[in-house]
């Protein structure tokens, strides 16, 4: 027998209060002044009743009625063999997918670990009666929520974690929060040296626009910046405004590019917070700080150095550079149809190392940063994961899982029967009351 609503039993405790008060109150008999005691029987023949059997029976029946009602409210469920078999078939599974930065590693086949984990999660949830997939960059923070959800489900309860299990992802102390009757499965994805180091996502892209006759120089700049891969910045035909530039987050427009003036006309002061963040990261990039080339030195960027220059009557751009030479790199914001883009206008020569440094710094500034810890390849060993794994969770039945199933109706029926018994006993006691005297008045 299980109780699907055990809180109902609190009602039984409060029912005892009036019963106790009734029993205690019987100790004080009331005093009545009477003309004579000669007609009263001796106290021995009319003892003060404390434990008359019929009274106890009536009290017991009444208490039984209340207990049956309270038990019915607690929604009992008698666990027959059939019900146990049905519950054993039923599985409730919660799958936690690790989406931390280390899961961004790319396998040899080109699939990121997190994508493999998501697919594994979908496979794990397929065909399960009750399942829940949770994605989190910090697995321990969602364990308690996962366990809470499992407690509302009936059947065998299972917890599955899909991760690369880098050291720090989870530990045995975290798993103590999982009840012992819940099965725990730890599935590893994206492991081993086949995985590359976590790469910053540069799909936000940096576009380079230069003079048409400087294609080779542009290619050289890309190679020097070390970002000339398919996942890297888009190489734009020099001098041409291509549709590809619309998807770039940052445009670097070198002097002589055919669309230089056009882009310049659309420039305005950087206002979008995201673009300002990119600009700050750019100016704090080690390359931009330490670079010495062509006798050009960029002062360490801080807000004091970001001084708006005046172009005509409007301040449209931010000048970056040492005092006196603030025209070396200017930054502005333009619109490309649906979104704002950051535009950099370098003053230095396209083929210079400064240009390459600017391209690389811009590309890194656009990509999200990777915590250093996530760059580690050290993972939790398989033996440890095996030790943490639990199998064969016990099947449970809960109110939510059982739907409306309850054997409480039989207890309600019992309460009704007991009410009838109580009425019969009470009527019998009333009929035993003394008759009125026959003496005529």
């Amino acid at each position: 027998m299980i109780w699907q609503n055990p809180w109902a039993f609190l009602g039984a405790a409060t029912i005892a209060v009036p019963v106790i008060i009734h029993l205690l109150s019987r100790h004080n008999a009331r005093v009545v002044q009477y003309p004579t005691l000669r007609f009263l029987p001796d106290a021995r023949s009319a003892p003060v009743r404390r434990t008359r059997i019929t009274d106890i029976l009536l009290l017991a029946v009444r208490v039984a009625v209340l207990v049956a009602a309270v038990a019915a409210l607690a929604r009992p469920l008698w666990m027959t063999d059939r019900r146990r078999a049905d519950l054993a078939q039923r599985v409730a599974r919660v799958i936690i997918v690790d989406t931390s930065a280390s899961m961004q590693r790319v396998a040899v086949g080109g699939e990121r670990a997190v994508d493999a984990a998501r697919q594994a999660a979908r496979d794990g949830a397929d065909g399960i009666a009750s399942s829940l997939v949770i994605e989190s960059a910090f697995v321990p923070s969602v364990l308690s929520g996962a366990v809470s959800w499992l407690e509302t489900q009936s059947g065998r309860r299972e917890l599955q974690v899909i991760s690369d299990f880098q050291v720090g992802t989870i530990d045995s102390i975290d798993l103590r929060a999982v009840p012992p009757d819940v099965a725990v499965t730890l599935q590893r994805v994206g492991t081993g040296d086949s995985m590359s180091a976590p790469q910053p996502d540069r799909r936000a892209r940096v576009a380079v626009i230069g003079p048409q006759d400087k294609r080779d120089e542009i290619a050289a700049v890309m190679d020097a910046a070390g970002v000339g891969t398919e996942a890297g910045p888009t190489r734009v035909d020099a001098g041409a405004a291509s549709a590809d530039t619309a998807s770039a987050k940052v445009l670097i427009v070198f002097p002589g590019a055919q669309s230089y003036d056009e882009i310049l006309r659309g420039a305005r002061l950087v206002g979008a917070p995201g673009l300002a963040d990119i600009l700050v990261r750019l100016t704090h990039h080690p390359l931009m700080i330490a670079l010495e080339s062509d006798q050009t030195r960029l002062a360490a960027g801080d807000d004091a150095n970001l001084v708006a220059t005046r172009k005509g009557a409007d301040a449209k751009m931010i000048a970056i550079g040492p005092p006196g030479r603030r025209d070396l790199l200017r930054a502005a914001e333009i619109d490309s149809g649906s979104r704002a883009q950051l535009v950099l206008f370098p003053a230095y020569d396209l083929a210079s190392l400064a240009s390459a440094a600017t391209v690389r710094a811009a590309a890194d500034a656009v990509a999200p940063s990777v915590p250093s810890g996530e760059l580690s390849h050290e993972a939790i060993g398989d033996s440890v994961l095996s030790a943490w794994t639990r199998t064969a969770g016990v099947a449970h039945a809960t109110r939510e899982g059982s739907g409306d199933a309850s054997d409480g109706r039989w207890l309600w029926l019992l309460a009704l029967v007991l009410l009838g018994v109580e009425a019969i006993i009470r009527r019998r006691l009333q009929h035993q009351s003394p008759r009125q005297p026959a003496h005529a008045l």
Partner: protein
Amino acid sequence: MSALSAPVVAAIDDLEFAARLVVEGLRAGGHRSPFHGFSAEFQQHRPYRAGDDLKYLDWKLLARTDRLYSRQFRETTSMSVMLVLDSSPSMAYASDGVSKFASARVLAAALAYLISTQGDAVGLMSMTGDALTYVPARGGRVHLRSLLARMDALEPDAAWDAPRVIARSADLLRRRGVVIVVSDFYDAEQETQRELRRVRRRGHDVAMLQVMTRNEIAFPFTGDVEFEDLESGARRLVDARIAAREYQQSVEAFLSRVAQSARRDGFEYAIAPTDLPPERILREFLLRWNRTPVASRGGGAGG
């Protein structure tokens, strides 16, 4: 006009007024006092003279002798009635706001009023504390007022000695009269009956009005009750529901015993529940008394 209820009559502070109300209610019903003319005695015959009241003509003698004779009575003297009022603590018990003593006092006062206004003598015998409270049997309005005032001053807290009070009341009746005892008759049952019989043997008539509350007869108590005797202060704790049956049997036996004993000894007897209007109680009491044959009273008046 319906009779005033017992609580209403009991609530009237002026005992004389309450008594008058009850008696006027009785008279309105046309009831004849059984006391009036009770003690008239035949003395002799004398020849009928013109002007004699025809009701005194002896018709039987006329039929026998063809002669007219008037019956001559001894000068009608007023009858003497002694009211004995129980002032024991048990009479203090009240039910529905009416105590037995208040009810008994109204009944006694009404009887005194009725007797006095019809020309008879009425006296009072009771107790206050250990001492007898005595008002001699006399007639007249002034005496009545004095008697009612004494009655009004009584309280149900005396060391009641029923045989003594009854004996003394009979002693103080100078001529043949009536002793009416208004009491619950709880005390000294045997001795009281014996004394009443002695009163009867001395030639007086005896009437008993037994005052009881409905509670004392029906015993409507339930649960654990500790009863305290109003007279002795003794206590007894009983389960009222268990005790009720035996109690009611005892009370029925007691009331039957008193009634049968009264009937056997030739006493007038009536039970006076405190929840009935006093007028109704007295009406039934007087009706029954009027219907009682003279012979059964044990040597009644001549006529």
